[in-house]
């Protein structure tokens, strides 16, 4: 299956629910609205065989947060969806791809994205005493290194 096949299969199955197609050698990027996101991932995993989840990239775009899982082993298909920053909720794909759990927790920890349906969405990598509501990869986060606890220099 090459890039064109993936694009045509997606267009055939979802019509105008998928858009913004962008292809490069062995890479496909496209957009789908958050309400169809899970459906599209399920189609990719179960019908087209993209069962391997490489990563979930979450990006702060200013007003919106972009959530983008990268699927596949040879060919990489990236499903892009955007959710508003004040209410960043998106469906979890953890029941389609069990390996997604930790990726979703990471995005939750770093950018505060809520994955509806992920049963274990807890803090995974920041310290336990990290202040609530501060997400290190959001643009507005003001972060400083910790203060020295003894008289080291600087």
């Amino acid at each position, binding site marked *: 299956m090459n890039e064109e096949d993936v694009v045509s299969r997606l267009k055939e199955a979802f019509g105008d629910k998928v858009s913004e197609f962008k292809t490069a050698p062995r890479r496909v990027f496209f957009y789908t609205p958050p309400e169809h996101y899970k459906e599209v991932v399920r189609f990719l995993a179960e019908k087209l065989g993209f069962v391997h989840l490489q990563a979930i990239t979450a990006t702060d775009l200013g007003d919106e947060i972009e959530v983008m899982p*990268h699927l596949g082993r040879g060919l990489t298909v990236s499903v892009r969806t955007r959710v508003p920053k004040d209410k960043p909720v998106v469906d979890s794909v953890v029941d389609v791809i*069990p390996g997604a759990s*930790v990726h979703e927790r*990471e995005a939750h920890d770093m950018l505060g994205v809520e994955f509806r349906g992920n049963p274990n969405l*807890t803090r*995974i*990598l*920041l310290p336990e005493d990290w202040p609530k509501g501060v997400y290190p990869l959001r643009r507005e986060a003001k972060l400083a290194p910790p203060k020295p606890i003894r008289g080291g220099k600087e």
Partner: protein
Amino acid sequence: MSFSSSYERFFDIPIGPQHPALKEPILLRLIVEGEHVVAADVDVSYTHRGVERAMQERNYIQNIYLAERICGICNVAHTLCYCQNIEGLYDVEIPSRALYIRVLVEELARIHSHLLWLGVAAHEIGFDTLFMYIWRDRERVMDLIEEITGNRVTSAINTIGGVRRDIKPETCDRCLKAMDYLEERIKYYKKVCEIDPTVIARCAGVGILKPKDAIRLCAVGPTLRASNIKNDVRADDPYAVHDEVPFNVIVYDTNDTLARVLVRIDEMLESINMVRYCIEHMPSGPVRVRLKLSPPVGEHLSRVEAPRGELIHYVKSNGTEKPERYKVRTPTFGNIPALCEMLTSKGDYVVNIADVPIAFASIDPCLSCTARVVMLDREKEKLWVGSLDRLRRWRGWG
């Protein structure tokens, strides 16, 4: 799920974060019933340093060295992936001599990493003689890397637009000589691992990961290939000159730790042949093109087969000299769910506490990579084992 209510019969053994058997700060929590491990939980958040945020605050040149220090052992793979990624934004042709040097150094680093792992694995099963011999031979590779790049570990050879140092003809000769020596030694170690009763008793049948589970849990690298799944980024998604350099993807079908040992040994032999091929077929010409500091607006996803498996970097640029978003997914992270699976007894398959170190080491965990972004943590009463139970339910057993 509350820990105390559901696991009353069980003991909880925490190992780490500072422990003689561990070289890195990690908290390994085992839920045991008698001698048998019934659930495992890994917390590696101790090495979270905030690399992704730091990458957004530095320019593209500084980020090469930051990417290099995500992981010291697979630093060549990280810089290679980073540089490919940024070059993808420029859409520029890299001189083929540079690509050959990249592959050469990458394969040398793979040999060094696998030898290191083999030594550590021998140490984990209590076979320190093998550990010492392997680490003695590993110094030959370290000398080569030092000679080519200027440092034993962090190579700093890849840069945006090519490589920073050319390789000298006399280094090539020494490299070929060292490859002959290493090939003989590695074949010897393969024989040892195949016939030595200590290795077989400790590795065969330990840490089983079935092919079905390996796919479902998104395992990568040698862990996946030891479960009889032919998958290698170098073959599936060739980068640099991997479409020209011939090599075989090694698979073994016994799914256990011994298979992972043998996969890595055979991969080293393949790497030796690739190094030889690179030296013999290296074209002449420049090794670097100069590029502007600020790449054009765009995004790019780059994949590299690091010694531990598939490595993914994603960049989004906004036309300034700093990236807008830089995302790294390291191979050990992909293997952690598979590790928890290996360490869980079920049915006839039993994991003893004594098997934990080697089963844990068999994925070649490199936590400094992993915890840069991630990990499983315990929050008060909520345990990862709880969600592992759920994972099991989704897969339809247990």
